[in-house]
């Protein structure tokens, strides 16, 4: 089922939780909503489900305007962060609940419901636990029951709010792979919320990066990492270093020195230069480079992270050095980013390297 969110705005007591959000989700797609806390991810998910109504705008399921439909009519599967299992029902009863509350002919017979619950339990690899109560399950198992329960109603869209938020790293990775498999097997259109970028980039077909109630960028993992379209996305996805620079005559300047990067078609003025700490070339002399003194250094796995004070100790940037690099504190280092991106301060097109 295609889902189309059109110019949706959501206010809570005048506070705008979402400002003019538009998003097209294709049928069968696995989409991640990624963003810092408070950016409106849960709000967007709840709007799709119908648990909130938009202040403005509309949401289409296929060609049908769903905005005026109640939660019950929308037929969406929602998996809550805290699982929200019915604790007075067994696992099988939980999964069968959505079928049991159907009216008249739409309600399958009892044996059918039970059979369906057992099938789903098999799908989520929990066979044999059908008669347990939720409090007799581990967190990861509860999460899977919640997913099976949401899938039992053959939802048009599957919505998951931080599905692995409360689990430890090991279980998260396992469930992540498993969710991808289930998605590929069942083909449900799926939207999940996360603030873990690794999870989003690894799992989703497309990632929606959100910030302060807006969608910053929609794209594949490669898009988000290699072609970020705003300073926010550059800073949020992956490690990054930022320097305030100036553009003059097609050259990038840091204070009174040129950095050795040339740009075309950029009007003179202030800008921000972004680059990845690991994507740099160290230089010996400095005829067009960024140079600074080492302020701090720490070992991160196979590399060494160094904080440089540049531009007369005004700014600090992080770069990565090989572990055996002889740099000590106060030693001088010169480098130039290989790949970078420049965001002019005045509204204008951003420029990036090759």
């Amino acid at each position, binding site marked *: 089922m295609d889902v189309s969110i059109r110019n949706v705005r959501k206010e809570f007591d005048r506070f705008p939780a979402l400002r003019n959000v538009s998003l097209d989700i294709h049928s069968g797609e696995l989409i991640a909503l990624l963003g810092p806390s408070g950016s409106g991810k849960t709000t967007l998910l709840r709007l799709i489900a119908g648990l909130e109504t938009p202040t403005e705008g509309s949401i289409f399921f296929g060609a049908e305007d769903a905005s005026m439909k109640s939660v019950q009519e929308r*037929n969406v599967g929602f998996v809550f962060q805290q699982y929200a299992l019915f604790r007075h029902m067994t696992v099988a009863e939980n999964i069968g*609940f*959505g079928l049991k*509350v*159907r009216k008249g002919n739409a309600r399958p017979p009892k044996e059918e419901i039970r059979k369906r619950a057992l099938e789903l339990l098999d799908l989520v690899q929990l066979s044999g636990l059908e008669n347990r109560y939720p409090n007799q399950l581990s967190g990861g198992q509860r999460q899977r029951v919640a997913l099976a329960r949401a899938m039992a*109603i053959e939802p048009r869209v599957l919505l998951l709010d931080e599905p692995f938020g409360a689990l430890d790293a090991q279980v998260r990775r396992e469930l992540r792979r498993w969710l991808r498999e289930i998605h590929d097997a069942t083909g449900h259109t799926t939207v999940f919320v996360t603030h873990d970028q690794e999870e989003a980039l690894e799992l989703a077909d497309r990632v929606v990066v959100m910030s302060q109630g807006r969608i910053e960028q929609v794209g594949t993992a490669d898009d988000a990492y290699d072609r970020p379209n705003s300073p926010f996305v550059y800073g949020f996805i992956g490690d990054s270093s930022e320097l305030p620079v100036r553009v003059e005559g097609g050259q990038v300047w840091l204070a009174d020195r040129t950095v050795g990067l040339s740009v075309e078609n950029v009007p003179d003025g202030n800008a921000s230069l972004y680059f990845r700490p690991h994507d740099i070339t160290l230089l010996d002399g400095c005829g067009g480079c960024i140079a600074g003194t080492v302020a701090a250094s720490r070992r991160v796995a196979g590399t060494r992270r160094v904080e440089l004070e540049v531009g007369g100790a005004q700014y600090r940037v992080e770069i990565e050095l090989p572990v055996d690099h002889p740099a000590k504190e106060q030693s001088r280092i010169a480098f130039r980013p290989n790949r970078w991106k420049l965001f002019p301060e005045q509204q204008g097109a951003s420029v990036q390297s090759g």
Partner: protein
Amino acid sequence: MSNASTVWRFRQPSVLPGFGLALGFTIAYLSLIVLIPLSGVGVRAAALGWDGFWAMVTDERTVKALQVSFGTSLIAAFVNVVFGTLVAWVLVRYRFPGRRLIDAAVDLPFALPTAVAGIALAAIYAPNGWIGSLLAPLGIKVAFTPVGIVVALIFVGLPFVVRTVQPVMEEIDRDVEEAAATLGANRFQTITRIILPSLTPAILTGFGLAFARAVGEYGSVIFIAGNIPYVSEIAPLLIVIRLEEFDYAGATAIAAIMLVISFFMLFAINLVQAWNRRRYGYGS
């Protein structure tokens, strides 16, 4: 779960020390405050001998009084469960002007001397009272009948249900209701299948408390009941009547049988609770 139930242990190891001290204190305290005074009733009743006791208890007036007491108490407790839960629902779920006042008013039956309540209720429900005069043309008599007793018992029992259900209701997760809605359950199904089952333990406790309070109630009832022997005379009143006649043996016999019946009813409610808890696995 399985090994815990197969190997029964007197005392589970716990992170909190002081089990022995706490249990000792509990037993000593309960003995002083509850068990010793109550066993006095047992001892006095035993002095009657089985035949004497049985004769007292099966006396027709006593039997009728017991029926009136337990019957009206049960009805009142049921009514309180229904309407008390409703009141708790309104107080928890809706925000309206005057909510805090109503919330505070729920406790008034706790505070008011019950005799005052009885007199007020009798005045209102008497055939010439505010409500009584409206009901009289319909042929409904409330004051001075068992119906009046039920009204008084509802009054004194209401806070027990509201105050036990309310906090549990406040703790209900919105998530769970929303989950039911996304699964297609309508409002009614959500209430009957999700919310009420999770309130059952609290409702049962409220029922037990309201019932126990009603059985022991005296002050408010005697003013509205009319106290007609065999019709609207409650057992506690009969005990007082026997005492005034210096018939201590008769009074103890009625007291003893009331204790026994009450104990078994409350015990039954506790068993249901324990079964409920084990089934849904809350608590330990």
